[in-house]
């Protein structure tokens, strides 16, 4: 390591700590303080409000579906990108990064254009079978899937590259077929990358706002997720409930990170 002079060391520490403090720690701490300024009453009030509990349940349902769908597709696409050569591979790889660069509001609008019940490309066809996509949970799950899509893939792809396919070939030569090789060799090797991807996706899915706001129609008590409730409550001057809901969202995110930190074995990078 390069030797850094003591004043430089302190300057760097203060810079990093200051940046994180003013940008992350302080604002989050204020939300927590506002939530508990009257003891637990704000939280219990919020949790006895049907609008909030309904939104929390909906958020959880949508996030879990989105994570499960992204898990299956994310791992399959990662394997496809790393283990196989095919025309259009670079285009596919670039498209996967698109959700990171496109604003979620645009994603919402795009889904609305394709699936809305009146003039969308597929919308009327789907609605004639008695199934609604837009202004209902399928559309909200799709929007959430879209924004969280790259998270699992970007965790898993580098690990797949790193482990190479030697172990898979060895398994094949020992008599394992493709599914056996996947379950016994590939999956255990990428386990931690998948767990990280899932946690990141879950956190991202719980917090999604823009895309979901557009496709859900933001109908109170029906298609309003936790983040939408925070906005609605805040604009209705019910700040304390907004803070309490925000606190719950922060709490789940931090809990996810802590769980992973404990689960992860110490010797694995």
């Amino acid at each position, binding site marked *: 390591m390069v030797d850094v002079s003591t004043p430089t060391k302190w300057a760097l520490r203060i810079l990093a700590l200051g940046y994180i403090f003013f940008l992350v720690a302080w604002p989050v701490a204020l939300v927590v303080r506002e939530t508990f300024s009257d003891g637990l009453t704000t939280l219990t009030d919020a949790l006895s409000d049907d609008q909030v509990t309904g939104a929390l349940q909906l958020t959880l349902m949508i996030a879990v579906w989105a994570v499960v769908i992204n898990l299956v597709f994310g791992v399959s696409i990662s394997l496809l990108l790393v283990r196989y050569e095919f025309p259009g591979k670079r285009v596919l790889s670039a498209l996967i990064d698109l959700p990171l660069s496109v604003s979620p509001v645009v994603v919402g609008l795009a889904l609305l254009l394709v699936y809305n019940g009146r003039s969308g490309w597929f919308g009327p066809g789907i609605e004639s079978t008695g199934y609604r996509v837009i202004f209902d949970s399928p559309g909200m799950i799709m929007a959430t899937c879209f924004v969280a899509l790259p998270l699992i893939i970007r965790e898993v792809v580098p690990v797949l590259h790193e482990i190479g396919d*030697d*172990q898979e070939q060895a398994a094949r*030569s*020992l*008599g394992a077929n493709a599914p056996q090789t996947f379950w*016994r060799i590939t999956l255990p090797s990428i386990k931690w990358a998948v767990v990280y991807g899932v946690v990141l996706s879950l956190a991202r899915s719980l917090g999604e706002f823009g895309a979901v706001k557009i496709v859900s129609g933001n109908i109170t008590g029906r298609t309003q997720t936790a983040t939408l409730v925070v906005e609605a409550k805040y604009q209705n001057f019910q700040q304390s409930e907004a803070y309490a809901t925000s606190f719950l969202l922060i709490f789940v995110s931090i809990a996810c990170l802590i769980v992973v930190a404990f689960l992860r074995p110490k010797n694995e990078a």
Partner: protein
Amino acid sequence: MSIDITGLNKTFGDFVALDDVNVSLPTGQLTALLGPSGGGKSTLLRIIAGLDTADSGTVSIEGVDATKLPPQKRNVGFVFQHYAVFKHMTVAKNVAFGLEIRKRPKEEIAARVDELLKLVHLSQFSHRLPSQLSGGQRQRMALARALAVEPTVLLLDEPFGALDAKVRKELREWLRRLHDEVAVTTVFVTHDQEEALEVADEIVVINEGRVEQVGSPDELYDQPANDFVMSFLGEVTTLGGASLRPHDIEVATAPHSAGAVEGSISRMLRIGFEVRLTVLTVDGDEVAVVLTRTHARSLGLTEGATVWLTPANGATVIPSMRASLAG
């Protein structure tokens, strides 16, 4: 014959890896595929295992046409240069893998794993993870894992290539003894001619995607089919228009025999018990000569001395064209 290969071709883009390869590898023997890097020997091994597919040609193993079979149906054991250990499994679990896939009874698996770990001297490490083993131990574990499924043929792709020189030499001797014990048809790839000469019953020399010669180590060394085989199996020099080994040249300090080539020693290099001379002949050729330290001392050789060179009795001598000796 255990493995029959006919008319095998394989290209990677413009690169011809295998060019109409026909070869039969005998049952129960230890065969070396020897050749320079990029010569196609690993590709041939991987095609036998089913890990790569040939563009054309057939592979049959013990009389069964295996050309179209996936690797898991060929019943071959494969050992990789970089071990390819299952990192998340213990040594015992690694060895048991093939048997568990075959759904053998638990007691049978445990007994077989025990027996194999004894064979490769890893019994006391059975509960360790591969990351806690040295390179040589990992490769022995990989061998036990491949042997566990009782393969028809055992294929080893530069098995000792990633190990340091000393471990390499030990494992090489150990592989020979192991093969004498287990007697499974074994094919291993190497670019080290010493390894091939020491360990193999039969050597297949492969260069630029073609088989140059097939034979026992003695046959190859004594009767090389061409300049390439001659030069690949050991050092070669030219004396009076013929190729021969530097240690097959006799040095005299006086012109005893007719036909001896006169020259002067331009360089003398001692390495341990060995002395290497560079002799500049009166015809202007540079000849490399190797003799023992004791022999050189008894002749009283020094740099600048005049010597007479003749091929030794019984030396392998083939008429040469200098240009083709580059390899």
